[in-house]
């Protein structure tokens, strides 16, 4: 565990500044997308079109992009599983000539009956028990302690500010696109029309004036909370404990409260309270700055190979020279 290392990365120093962040509590998110619009409003981001909906979802945003810095994910746990549909279909087919089949058993929800009447009842029962699980999560840049984009940026457009947030300076970015694959969370993207990369700045300009970020301000249910990181982690931990108390055993923090060697990218400045495994929200179970993870071994291997190659070339020539002195040959190899 290293300490103080991030300080050497900080590009702007102001006294009294502390780490600020987001705590996004998905258990109170109502999926209204106010954060998406408030973000676009404040940061003057254009509407960049929609992706054709994920089937039954209300999510037409798809993912974060250079002009979408907040994205409300709709996790459809209740989308009918293939089995459930098959069962319903089978029940229908066996239903006889009626427009709607007579489905045995009592209760109001026939889908359940339909499903349970068929085979694979266990799967179906599980799927049905998942009904009513429709989870919303407002995704955003994580402002990682070990930020891949920050490490990758060749121009210094990405900097760490006095609030220890990772901010992209639009007046510097030249659109090289390297931050895009360097982000393990799929946050940064390059705008195809503007040419520059874009991502959440945690409203750096607002923070300078003591205003909270636009998304956190707009969030009707305070699912997005903004504040000093330390304080947020404390609230979040208490919230987890509270939810466990209420029987929501699945509640956990994504990006905060971990043992040092289990931290996500060294700990996230914007962390989340989730209730399902991270992969259901499009989040990796573990991630770190790809640059920090790979740059040392990759460079060693690469430069070593480079030196080896030039040495190999020299050897090949010297050997060929010797050979040719012994006997002139036709060109081979």
């Amino acid at each position, binding site marked *: 565990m290293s300490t103080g290392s991030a300080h050497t990365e900080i590009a702007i120093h102001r006294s009294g500044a502390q780490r600020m962040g987001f705590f996004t509590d998905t258990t*109170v998110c*109502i*999926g*209204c*997308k*106010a954060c*998406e*619009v408030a973000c*676009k*409003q404040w940061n003057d981001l*254009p*509407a*960049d*079109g*929609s992706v*054709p*909906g994920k*089937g*039954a*979802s*209300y999510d*037409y*945003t798809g993912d974060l992009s250079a002009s979408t810095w907040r994205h409300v994910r709709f996790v*459809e746990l*209740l*989308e*009918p599983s293939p089995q*459930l*549909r098959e069962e*319903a*279909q089978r*029940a*229908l087919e066996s239903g006889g000539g009626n*427009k*709607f*089949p007579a*489905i045995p058993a*009592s*209760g*109001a*929800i*026939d*889908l359940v*009956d*339909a499903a349970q009447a068929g085979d694979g009842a266990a799967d179906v029962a599980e799927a049905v028990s998942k*009904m*009513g*699980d*429709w*989870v*919303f999560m407002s995704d955003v840049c994580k402002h990682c302690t070990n930020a891949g984009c920050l490490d990758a940026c060749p121009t210094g457009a990405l900097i760490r500010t006095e609030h220890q947030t990772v901010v992209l300076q639009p007046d510097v970015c030249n659109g090289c696109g390297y931050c895009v694959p360097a982000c393990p969370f799929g946050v940064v993207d390059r705008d195809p029309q503007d040419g520059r990369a874009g991502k959440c700045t945690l409203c750096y300009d607002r923070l300078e004036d003591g205003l909270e970020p636009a998304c956190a301000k707009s969030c*009707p*249910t*305070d699912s997005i909370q903004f504040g000093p990181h330390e304080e947020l982690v404390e609230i979040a931990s208490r919230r987890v404990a509270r939810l466990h108390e209420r029987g929501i055993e699945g509640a956990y923090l994504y990006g905060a409260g971990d043992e040092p060697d289990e931290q996500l990218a060294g700990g996230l400045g914007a962390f989340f309270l989730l209730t399902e495994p991270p992969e259901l929200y499009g989040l990796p179970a573990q991630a770190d700055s790809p640059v920090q993870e790979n740059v040392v071994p990759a460079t060693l291997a690469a430069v070593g190979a480079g030196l080896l190659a030039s040495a190999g070339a020299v050897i090949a020539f010297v050997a060929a020279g010797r050979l040719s002195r012994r006997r002139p040959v036709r060109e081979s190899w």
Partner: protein
Amino acid sequence: MAEAHPVGFRWVMKAKERGARVIHIDPRYSRTSQLADTYVAIRAGTDVAFLGGIIRHVLETESYFRDYVIQYTNASTIINEQFRDTEELDGLFSGFNPDTGLYDRSSWMYEGGEVASAAGVREHSTESFNERTGAGMMMGNVERDETLQHPRCVFQILRRHFSRYTPEMVERICGVSREDFMAVADALITNSGRERTGMFCYANGWTQHVEAVQMIRTAAILQLLLGNVGRPGGGIMALRGHASIQGSTDVPTLYDLLPGYLSMPRAREGHLTLEDYIDTGGADRGWWSFFDTYIISPLKAWFGDAATKQSDYGFAHIPKLTGNHSHYATMLRALDGGVDGFFVMGQNPAVGSAHSGLQRRALAKMKWLVVRDMAEIETATFWRNSPEVQSGELRPEEIQTEVFLMPAASHIEKEGTFTNTQRLVQFRDKALDPPGDARSELWFMHHLAKRVKAHYAGSDRDRDWPIVNLKWGYPEHGEMREPDVEAVLKEINGYEVASGRPLSSFTELRSDGTTACGCWIYSGIYEAGVNQARRRRPGDIAAEGGTVSPEWAWAWPANRRILYNRASADPQGKPWSERKRYVWWDEEQGRWTGYDVPDFPADKRPDYRPEPDARAMDAIGGADPFMMMADGRAWLYTPSGLLDGPLPTFYEPVESPVKNLLYPKVGTDPATIRWKRPENPLHATGDPRYPVVATTFRLTEHHTAGGMSRSVPWLVELQPEMFAEIDPQLAADRGIENGGWMTIVTERAEIEARAKVTDRLRPLRVEGCVVHQLGLPWHWGYSGLSRGDTTNDLGVLTADPNVSIQETKSFTCDVRAGRRHRASTARLAGAALRGHDVEPSEDDPLAENPKEASE
């Protein structure tokens, strides 16, 4: 609520974290359902059965708040002998006339007295107007039985009336399982009483039904039984859909109302005088005894010096009603060529009104149309790209309607007040001038009025009297010559005619023409010449009672935040519980006090008992919190004021796939307004061609008919396409694929939508069959950045008899896979043309035959 009022839901979430239990009942699993503790799927339009079931449960288990019910409601009041309940008449109340489809309501009266409703005479038809309902308001003295044992007391009638609404019946009608039903009922009961309160929130899911008023009445009865009215954390919250929709009923642009819920005068034999009007509309007991001051003051405000006792304050010149002139009735008249010109301001009937294909055809029959909006909305472009034009039924070159599309100012480009859903009147400051020729509606009306007045100046025709004498002296300012909004607000508030001093309250109003007031309930909003709606002191909302924030803006009436808040204290004036204290009697000061402005005469002692012949407010006892009612009590039973029954009764929606299990002989509501015309075809109950129940809904990302959201790219990208939510079983049956196209068909139209096959909609088992429900957002039309088919094309015109609202939350349809093959409303082309052949009647067609008899 999370879906359509996300910021309102902020407080629900807070309540939830404080331990409140949130129950969501909806045909469709929405964002709200996800956040609620309990979600109950219900068949659209069966709310009366569901709530009726809870009422029965509350009565049977004796779980009502007895003290509250006996003291504050008319449970103990005895009803006259002639009254017959639906139990005895198989679904009808006494007094039904099958020929007119109307009730003679004289048999619904109290024993020994005759009362009119708090809202005065509100009925829509001439016939009902001529009944003697109002005069004297409350004749004689009612009889009560405080033991609630009298067989004809309201309580016993209620018990008998709801005895059919058993949990089994609820299950069979609503498709709600017994367990779910009992869970909801128990939650309500355990969260009501002295220490706790429960609250109902509803939106258009209740209002857009032909039984809308009765649905809300059922909730009101339940809340009264549980003691949840007039108390903090209680009540029935209407979640209204538009910024100032409350204001537009308070200061009404509605055909049947004058400002402040006074009814428009009805034509009657002979000559209607102000005195007749006050006689029928006023009351001699309760707050409505000040009725005369409330009608004379606006006449004074409108006609100024010409409004004198001699001229009867110009009352004779107020136009009079002879029947239903509501929006839908008007559009049907227009379809018959009976309306020359139409102003549409910030409204989009071509998308937003039911049976919108018919609306557009009506627009094409008008001579001229003025549309005021910020963008080119569908109503303004119907002649160019409506489905009727696409199908070739209408051709632009044949549409003779002249259209003026006027650019409107946005909310920040004009100042004025909005009244929000909790009656809070908030003033908006102006930030910018509107761009180009865009102007506010205030400017438009003002400059239109000036032109009209100039035209009629000097006319001595009787009919021009109100225009000639119309007081219109609003000062103008700025380059645009915008009228002064505060001058209008001051007129609404009221002023002393002689001095021009703004009035401080409606208690200052006089009936002698010395005061003028545009809308009595808003009196006090300009108290002391200060714009009270512009107050912006939130106070400390964390303090006890601080959430009332009495100095943030201004709520009508008299800045009261909870109506009838006297009921938050017991008959002796002490709070029912310390936890729920709100307004109470302070013996030392000898007045009512609390966190809010008491909704009661401030110094009326709780132990005051009126003399038998007391009149006006003297007739209201100190323990009668509901002072707008002649008897000071909340009405479980409504002897007057409603056209379709004194008690709510479950009737199937007008279009329903199943028969009425409770009252098979009656079926649908007999008093419903049905406009039987060829272009308004109705599906019969159980029509096998239309087995699916459709219900409409709104999305968080869009606003009503899309005029304010489908032109906003940030919103369009969030919800770019029209879709329909369909359950997997029905989808499988019809071969509809998730994300694929589907077509929804009714007799009126067929529209296409992307299918969202989802368990958010679940088929319900109701008696004998499986009912599939379809969820349809209704935001789309043929203009704007995001276009799609219009859900309202599917709807039929029917209306609640009390308020003339349409039933779009429940109608039947069929679905099939694939896109539609022709313009959405093409199937009605012939019928609409036939409708045109009907000779426009000289008078309102409804006056002849107000309602078709039910089948």
